[in-house]
């Protein structure tokens, strides 16, 4: 999911697009002309490509094509990240997203006329896939901190950053968690008791700020006490 950011790139102002791609790379492109500025790997294992051409296009590795026997490829078909929304903090110049560590097995099905019809989770390392809330320095692509979402293994909900330095990071099985955007430290959590796959939102009514998230068929909305936090 692309995030549009205007900022300085190597001393010059640029209109950029930042994207943690499901292929395992964090891209920075010039959104006015598509110029490739940078790509950095953001998950532990990426093995589907041989390298890059001079325009910043990846060169796929044919050894990782799907096969009848099954080819292990990292990241998996589900991607190193997927639909959960990323978020950008302009004060800290940090980019946050849900990273999915793990590999997949891609199978070519000879019974049909098209390739790569099947995919499985790779059983490597016992835990096949694991979700993390991951913070990158937005312009170097370097990891700043990581928060492991225990028992979250597939896709999961999206993120929302706030001007107050709080990152809202719900988890797949119902924990609505708030993290310190700078350090990743847990500030607060609430168990909604059901699955969360949505992104949180924030809104204000008569000057009072709320944060809401959908869990299963319920909407949970949270606000600070009248008169401000004590």
């Amino acid at each position: 999911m692309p995030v549009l950011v205007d900022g300085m790139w190597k001393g010059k102002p640029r209109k950029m697009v930042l994207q943690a791609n499901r292929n395992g790379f964090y891209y920075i492109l010039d959104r006015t002309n598509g110029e490739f500025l940078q790509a950095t790997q953001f998950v532990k294992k990426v093995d589907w490509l041989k390298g890059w051409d001079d325009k910043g296009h990846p060169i796929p590795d044919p050894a990782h094509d799907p096969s009848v026997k099954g080819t292990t490829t990292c990241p998996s078909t589900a991607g190193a990240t997927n639909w959960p929304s990323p978020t950008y903090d302009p004060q800290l110049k940090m980019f946050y997203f849900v990273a999915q560590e793990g590999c997949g097995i891609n199978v070519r099905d000879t019974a049909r006329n098209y390739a790569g019809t099947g995919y499985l989770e790779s059983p490597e390392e016992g835990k096949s896939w694991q979700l993390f809330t991951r913070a990158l320095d937005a312009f170097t692509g370097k990891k700043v901190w990581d928060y492991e979402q225990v028992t979250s293994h597939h896709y999961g909900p999206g993120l929302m950053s706030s001007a107050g330095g709080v990152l809202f990071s719900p988890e797949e099985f119902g924990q609505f968690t708030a993290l310190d955007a700078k350090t990743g430290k847990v500030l607060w959590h609430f168990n909604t008791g059901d699955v969360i796959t949505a992104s949180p939102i924030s809104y204000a009514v008569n000057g009072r700020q709320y944060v809401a998230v959908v869990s299963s068929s319920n909407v949970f909305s949270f606000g600070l006490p009248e008169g401000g936090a004590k």
Partner: protein
Amino acid sequence: MRVALAIAALLLMAGTAGAQRRAAVDNGPRNPFATNQAAIEEGRSLYNSTCTGCHGANGAAGEFGPGLAIPGRSYARTTDSQIFDAIQHGIPGTPMPAQQGKLTDDQIWKIAAYVKGLRGTAIDAPSPGNVANGEAIFWGKGQCGTCHMVGGRGSIIGPDLSQIASLRKTNSIIDALTKEQHRVYGPGGAQPHLLTPLPVWPVVRITTADGKVIRGLLRNEDSFSLQVMGLDQQLHLLDRSKLKSVVYEPKGLMPTDYDKRLSKTEFDDLLAYLTRLGTPPEPASPVVKMPGGPEKD
């Protein structure tokens, strides 16, 4: 449970037309060889020489015929007499031939019992062996009762096995006793979607802040808490922030070398006991003709 299933089956059939409706009003004879392991074995070899060419080994589908025991598939013919009828008379309008005159009625019943066993769970075709001796091994040499419970006796650490033969296939029980990575066989035919995946409970060793060690099965966890069924048979509800360490052990608690720690006879006897833990199939119901009732076609 059985009643609920029967109602579910009726509702399922009510939703489909034609052949499936037959099943709801079927009051035909029950298979005289049902659950008779020796006859089912004979049925298997008859199936292999007569049916495998089209329907595949173990009813898993072949070149010309549909699979007879495919997980998740619904079948038009589910009762003993329906299966018998399809083998005896064939299925008109399809390549399925009639076996009448080629096989005796007894032979057809044996094939039907084998097919039913493929579709059903362990209780539909219990293993041969000394059941009483198997029960003694369960509580004694096998030490199964250290973790499992049957009929209110035993331990609450592992799954309750009182209905295991109604829930799992024989192969699945054998695999659980002998293989570290065992797969759960699907339900097949008559009981679609009934078998839930085998729950996998990792073993954890937890050290609390005050140095107490708890080892047990991790029943649930999230980023902030853990729920552990301890080997002390107590459920521990733990706050992650108050623990010194949580170690996830690579292996489960269930021993998977029963084929080595027991003799062949002991293993067979234990299996004979386990494959009878459950609600046996209901006895044949008498044919009742109800005036004005649904007509048989």
